[in-house]
């Protein structure tokens, strides 16, 4: 049996160690804001206000939020439906479908956008941007929802069915409420991803806040307007995260009964089987097959193609090392924040969680310039060295790992921690022996996800990488700026190939 508990962990004081550790992570995540403040207020607050307080800001805000709303809605639809189909139904080949559903994670937004627009130029604008962004970011919803679906006990649903509810009504009244935290967490990540995306919107020529910030850097050489606009994005992020925390409600969803959750018997699809297969095929075709086919076409069709296997290997190795280090540090920073957010409530915990999200909605270029600004002043020895880039990844992608950690910890029953405490274990020991091991698969999934997004990161990598070191994403960028798509294709292919490994494992885990 499981039951909804009110406020898990209520009445327990968060351990000072966790708070301190999370505090360090929060300070790191807030670094770009320090810079934004310094730059935005360089010519006085009035000047900054003049830049921000224009009709154009409102217009950009509306455009960015409109795009985010549409993409989030589409991602929720695709993510939740695919998760339910692959986890809870007798869908033929469910395992393969769940891997396919995760693979679009490996496709950088700029590659997806380019594939679409080079095939259908008419897509430029809102529709194309929404399409490309939806197809690369719906796994952010799919993964946590599929994980939750796999973990919830079917007993409640069975009870609802026995009381005469139909399958749809049961899904709506019983299953969906339990999925809400996972879906909302994924939705926030998607929203932040859309707000800070530059690649897809620039290729699709849809003007958003982030694109305006980039244009401002490129055109004015004056960092103040871009910083002032960046502040607006930060405010938006904080509001989003706050709203999500509010709607998260007080529903915990860890099981409290003994034993382990039974896997739910898969629902039979009957005549709907073909519709379900068609839906999964359509998403996989658009999200995976199509970009890969486009790459394949470039590989074979271009004249500018020149295989440089040695360089490709070297670049892949550097990318792997940087992304792995980025994933490790990001996960380490996210761990305490995620645990606190799952187990405790209160102002401090809220603040820590919001701080961790701060760096995520700010465009990569802004975070990167913040790092330049701070490093040349206070950490010169690591400037343009790998550690600084890895730190920057942690600032950019902490929310991805926080969301994964929080969801994973929420799924494990807090009562086990209480038992360990009552047996005299110290909080640190409880963390090491109970909380983290129970949540380990989810935390590892978060690390894998972070690894993938680090691999794809472009603007910050361009500015902060060690001089002369390339990643797959920067090579891809260098080749596409000169329109040598055939030369870019191998890098894109290897990038997707490597990123597909963790995506594949993530997908397998769900099956």
């Amino acid at each position, binding site marked *: 049996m499981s039951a909804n508990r009110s406020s898990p962990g209520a009445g327990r004081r968060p351990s000072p160690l966790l708070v301190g550790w999370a505090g360090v992570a929060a300070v790191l995540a807030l670094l770009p804001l320090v810079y934004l403040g310094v730059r935005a207020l360089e010519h006085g607050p009035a000047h900054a206000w003049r830049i921000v307080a224009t009709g154009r800001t409102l217009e950009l805000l509306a455009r960015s939020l409109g795009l985010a709303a549409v993409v989030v809605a589409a991602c929720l639809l695709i993510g939740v439906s695919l998760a339910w189909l692959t986890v809870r139904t007798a869908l033929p080949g469910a395992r393969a479908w769940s891997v396919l559903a995760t693979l679009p994670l490996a496709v950088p937004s700029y590659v997806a956008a380019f594939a679409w627009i080079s095939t259908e130029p008419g897509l430029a604008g809102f529709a194309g941007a929404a399409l490309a962004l939806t197809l690369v970011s719906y796994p952010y919803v799919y993964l946590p929802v599929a994980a939750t679906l796999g973990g919830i006990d079917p007993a409640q649903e069975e009870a609802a069915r026995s009381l005469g509810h139909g399958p749809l009504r049961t899904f709506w009244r019983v299953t969906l409420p339990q999925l809400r935290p996972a879906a909302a967490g994924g939705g926030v990540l998607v929203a932040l991803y859309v707000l800070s995306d530059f690649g897809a919107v620039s290729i699709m*020529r849809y003007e958003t806040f982030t694109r305006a910030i980039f244009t401002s850097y490129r055109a004015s050489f004056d960092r103040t307007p871009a910083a002032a606009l960046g502040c607006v994005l930060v405010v938006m992020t904080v509001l989003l995260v706050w709203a999500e925390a509010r709607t998260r409600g007080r529903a915990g969803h860890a099981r409290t009964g003994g034993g382990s959750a039974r896997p739910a018997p898969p629902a039979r699809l009957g005549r709907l089987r073909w519709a379900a297969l068609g839906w999964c095929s359509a998403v996989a075709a658009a999200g995976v097959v199509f970009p890969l086919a486009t790459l394949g076409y470039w590989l074979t069709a271009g004249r500018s193609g020149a295989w440089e296997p040695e360089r490709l290997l070297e670049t892949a190795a*550097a990318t792997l090392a940087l992304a792995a280090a980025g994933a490790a540090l990001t996960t380490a920073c996210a761990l305490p924040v995620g645990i606190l957010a799952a187990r405790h409530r209160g102002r401090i915990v809220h603040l820590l969680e919001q701080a961790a999200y701060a760096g995520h909605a700010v465009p990569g270029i802004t975070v990167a310039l913040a790092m330049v600004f701070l490093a040349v002043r206070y950490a010169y020895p690591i400037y343009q060295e790998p550690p600084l880039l890895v730190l920057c990844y942690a600032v950019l992608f902490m929310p991805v790992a926080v969301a994964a950690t929080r969801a994973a910890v929420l799924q494990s029953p807090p009562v086990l921690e209480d038992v360990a405490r009552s047996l005299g274990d110290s909080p640190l020991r409880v963390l090491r022996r109970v909380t983290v091991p129970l949540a380990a698969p989810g935390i590892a999934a978060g690390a894998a996800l972070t690894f993938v997004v680090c691999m794809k990161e472009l603007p910050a990598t361009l500015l902060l990488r060690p001089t002369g070191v390339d990643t797959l994403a920067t090579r891809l960028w260098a080749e596409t700026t000169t329109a040598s798509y055939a030369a870019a294709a191998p890098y894109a292919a290897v990038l997707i190939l490597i990123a597909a490994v963790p995506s594949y494992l993530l997908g397998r885990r769900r099956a």
Partner: protein
Amino acid sequence: MGTTTSRFAAFAAATLLAPLLAACGGQGQEAAPGSTTAAARQASPLVVYSGRDEALIGPLLQKLERSTGGKVEVRYGDSAELAAQLLEEGDKTQADLFLSQDAGALGALAGQGRLEPLPPESLDRVGQAYRAHDGTWVGLSGRARVIAYNPGKTAKAPDSVRDLTRPEWRGKVGYAPTNASFQAFVTGMRVLDGDDATRKWLEDFKANDPKVYEKNGAILDAVDSGEITLGLINHYYWFEKAAEVGAGKMTAKLHFPAKGDPGALVNVAGVGVVKGADQAAAARKAVDYLLSAEAQTYFADQTKEYPLAAGVTSKVEGLPPLESIDAPKIDLGKLSSLQETLAMLQETGMV
């Protein structure tokens, strides 16, 4: 499930361990530039920030390495982003040389006092119009603004961009408002005609329903296919495409606007030595090499841009000589006032 979980755990462990292994092995080989190890300091390399792409600049700098024997390290990026980075780095920068795609970024750095004046003998290799008045940067190659047109759709392209606001061109003109070259052209117009006239032109142009593209190449493709009649681009895109598909297969033709028209602006890609560069001597040598006949000819062949050093002429077929273009006489350094241009493009709803 069990095997997958353990495999997954293995992957996670690998993820966490990889950086350690990399730190021990892989990363050790690439003695990171600017690392403060004694070995690295002994032979301090020439650090170049390049807003021009690697395919173009890489081979040149390799030659430079061979001819001077000093090591060169390059950081590639977008010109304006690198300029922002150089400004953010201030006097702490390790960069010795800045190669820029356009004059605006160089002008911005010079304006903030971040570039060293170059020796007169280097500057004098290039005409006055294509270098900084205060001698802080010098142009390496010229990029002319042109009007591409589809002869199947119109017999003649207009002689002035000012004519593009006429009803006959309604919905038939392609442009790239976010492209640096277009913005430099608008800045040039502001310098020539003043802000009010430029704003008026932008409003009228916008009202004439021009088609928006992201890049020059896309505009040229659209003119070539007849999707649009006219396109505002840089000259070398046509020659690059002609080299790729064959000039005979090109439908689009180029028209160089008339004397002194803002649409006939010739912008430059150029180079400057960063203030306080610890490799200042090597950086000046590099500037001289980039102005040498060898490098200039290379630019001309590779990019189809105009070589700017005296005595070097482009061999690109069909390219009218630089002297024949009646470019408007403006101080290219003033193209750094892009911010006002951007504000204007925003007011008119173009970007």
